[in-house]
């Protein structure tokens, strides 16, 4: 950090918040709120004479509230920059710090928040993680029993720079515990709190255990675990070392912790699986390895940067295996635990990766983006005629469309991620998506349904999840009937209802629309637009005379190959049960109604040719 601070090309804005990001890759305009520290950065030397004279003490966040800090403080002794800040929520403006500062005159109570605008080419998000508060797990007594601590609290206690100068004392009586029990997976791997494994707790617990054993060789240390995860370089050897040094590993997740009211010792009750007995282990202190959770402010920041969350609440990467550092927003990258819990080597590696990914962009003058962007046909956009519309802009998850009165809607290509929501939602077919135009999709549909359409299932799939799921079905050898024909679009948001109408007009037996689960959508809200649209569509089709079983909406992820196979199998079954005759009859009945719905489609560039040379679509 000190190197970063001293580097001529690096400017650190500390005690500042990101407020707004406009623009796009290579051209971001960022508004930052510089909060007032009431200390002048160019005058404060970090000498620390102010802090001792400050009369106000409040809990110290860095010391996990074990120790106090003053109203004028640095977060921790090695903070970069080493500049003091006044916590105005608690300062009483007694000016003792001003006196202590003396001739440096570094304190300035007249400071106000300042908005700073930055032009940047790339953004890297490395906002880290927070710690799960285990209070809700009442059976463990955190918050009730003094001597039950979280791992990070324990770390501060054995740290030489910590509030007890490294004396590992227990809160109730300041004594060194003779026996310490560590409990793994508190809040992690738990369907009531966080499903995922936090990944680094086994290793840090072994580390803490070894440090304590080194400091207090007679201390009896037990680690209660479900599984020990030690996957990376020399981790397994570290685990072996711990066993060799007499640290006890007990496989069994504790059922409850109770307290002896006299000694304030804890009694940990657990089934020792390997003994086959329930044991009660008494310890002077218990340390809970709590889950790593997303930062509290992660959601707000994510919205500002248009980064979606993954199902566990951490930022979503572009692709979990192939592009784990990129976000779906070009030019914005992730590093460290913000993308998912990980330890130091992995974070550092990812940080270097993020720097490289960003560096590639900044090293050139021009940057190629994916061409599957939205494009407005200005002569078709009614906003240009003076009639107020702008629906496209409201649907865009990326604010990539600007609509000014009297002008056609305008797509900023670099901001467009290619979900196609605007295209499907435009009531006037005035906007299209390059490489996924209506004409192109219709051409595929017409080819697929040219012969015996009533025996076929037309499946519209989103690229990221459902198409991946169909792929998984294939690679997983999950068999399903050969009656399905698939069309891929980037997002279920692109699936225009007219596609479904046209498919039935062409005589398709069944139609499936399939996209990501809501929490997996690559385009933040794309799937939600689709879901709403399909809801209304189902009842519209039924009213027209299409049996409701013939239209199915499913949310299938890339890992759910089996589900895809099952859905197609079920639909094929339904298709056979309904029978070709009935389907043909329904199609006969509804063809004209559907054609009527689609009569203006021929006006869209390219569509008329596909529909059959200038007619309104009737065969």
């Amino acid at each position, binding site marked *: 950090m000190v190197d970063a601070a001293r580097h001529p090309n690096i400017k650190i804005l500390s005690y500042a918040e990101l407020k707004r990001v406009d623009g796009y890759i290579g051209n971001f305009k960022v508004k930052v709120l510089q909060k007032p520290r009431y200390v002048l950065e160019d005058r404060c030397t970090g000498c620390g004479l102010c802090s001792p004279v400050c009369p106000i003490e409040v809990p110290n966040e860095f010391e996990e509230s074990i120790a106090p800090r003053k109203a004028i403080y640095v977060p921790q002794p090695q903070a970069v920059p080493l500049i003091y800040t006044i916590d105005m929520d608690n300062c009483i403006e007694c000016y003792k710090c001003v006196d202590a500062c003396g001739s440096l005159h570094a304190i300035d109570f007249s400071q106000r928040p300042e908005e700073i605008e930055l032009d940047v080419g790339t953004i890297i998000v490395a906002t880290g993680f927070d710690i799960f508060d285990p209070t809700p797990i009442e059976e463990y007594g955190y918050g009730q029993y003094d001597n039950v601590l979280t791992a990070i609290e324990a770390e501060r206690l054995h740290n030489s720079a910590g509030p007890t100068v490294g004396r590992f004392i227990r809160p109730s009586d300041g004594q060194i515990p003779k026996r310490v029990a560590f409990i793994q997976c508190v809040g992690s791997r738990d369907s009531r709190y966080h499903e995922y494994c936090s990944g680094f707790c086994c290793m840090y617990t072994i580390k803490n255990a070894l440090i304590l054993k080194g400091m207090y060789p007679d201390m009896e240390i037990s680690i209660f675990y479900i599984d020990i995860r030690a996957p990376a370089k020399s981790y397994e050897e570290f685990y072996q070392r711990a066993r060799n040094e007499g640290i006890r590993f007990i496989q*069994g997740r504790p059922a409850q912790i109770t307290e002896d009211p006299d000694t304030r010792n804890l009694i940990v009750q657990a089934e020792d699986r390997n003994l086959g007995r329930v044991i009660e282990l008494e310890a002077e202190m218990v340390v809970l390895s709590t889950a790593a959770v997303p930062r509290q402010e992660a959601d707000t920041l994510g919205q500002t940067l248009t980064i979606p969350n993954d199902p566990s609440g951490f930022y979503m990467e572009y692709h979990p295996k192939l592009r784990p550092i990129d976000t779906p927003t070009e030019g914005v990258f992730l590093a460290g635990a913000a993308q998912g819990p990980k330890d130091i080597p992995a974070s550092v590696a990812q940080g270097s990766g993020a720097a490289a990914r960003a560096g590639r962009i900044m090293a050139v003058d021009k940057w190629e983006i994916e061409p599957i962007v939205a494009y407005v046909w200005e002569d078709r956009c009614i906003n240009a005629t003076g009639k107020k519309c702008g629906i496209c802009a409201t649907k865009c998850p990326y604010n990539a469309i600007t609509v000014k009165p009297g002008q056609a809607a305008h797509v900023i290509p670099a901001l467009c991620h290619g979900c196609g929501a605007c295209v499907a939602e435009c009531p006037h077919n005035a906007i299209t998506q390059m490489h996924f135009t209506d004409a192109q999709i219709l051409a595929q549909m017409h080819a697929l349904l040219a012969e015996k359409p009533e025996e076929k299932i037309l499946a519209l799939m989103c690229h990221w999840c459902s198409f991946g799921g169909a792929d998984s079905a294939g690679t997983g050898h999950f068999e399903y009937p050969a009656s399905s024909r698939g069309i891929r679009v980037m997002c279920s948001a692109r699936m225009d209802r007219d596609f479904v109408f046209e498919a039935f007009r062409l005589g398709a037996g069944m139609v499936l629309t399939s996209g990501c689960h809501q929490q997996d959508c690559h385009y933040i809200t794309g799937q939600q637009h689709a879901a709403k649209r399909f809801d209304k569509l189902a009842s519209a089709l039924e009213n027209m005379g299409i049996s409701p079983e013939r239209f199915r909406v499913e949310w299938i992820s890339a890992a759910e190959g089996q589900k895809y196979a099952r859905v197609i199998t079920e639909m094929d079954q339904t298709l056979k049960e309904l029978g070709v005759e009935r389907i043909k009859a329904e199609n006969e009945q509804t063809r004209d109604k559907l054609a009527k719905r689609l009569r203006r489609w021929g006006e869209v560039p390219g569509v008329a040719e596909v529909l059959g040379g200038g007619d309104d679509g009737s065969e």
Partner: protein
Amino acid sequence: MAQNNDFLGQVLATRGGERVMDCYQCGTCSGSCPVFAEMEYGPRQIMHMIHLGLEDEVLSGPDMWYCVSCYSCTCRCPRGIEITDVMAALRSLALQKGFTQDKEAKFSRAFAETVRQHGRSFEPELLARYYARTLDLLALLRQIPLGLQMLLKGKLPLLPKNVENTRTWREIFTPAGGKEKKTEC
């Protein structure tokens, strides 16, 4: 090791047994169970045995008959498995397979019969049916002091109180086309 994968399927199909495969053997359930010491295996091991399809061992064993339905395991299970309901399902499956020797199995059947007769419990008949099954005269005799105390305090009814129409009532015990199997009381 005799494995029966149908058994696993049967348990998965019961209400409360849907998530049995999620168990990762952490042992929180056995650690929480107040009667673990009485059981042969404990709930964690029972889960594992279900995974392995060890039907005979599970259903012939005593464990589920000792379960006191305290729900501690269900409350604390980090996988959200409704272990208490699984135990109940195992009791039912055990009865179907004819494992009726445990006293609690006999008690449950006696209770069900009594409720089927009257629509409500009726202790004298319940006890009669129970001890007729267990033939444990000693235990019955040992109950007499307490029974007398209860009688004197008016805690032991002498006549049953029935639902209005017992004949219609009993139909609830023979649902037509019921999905789940039942055992004759």
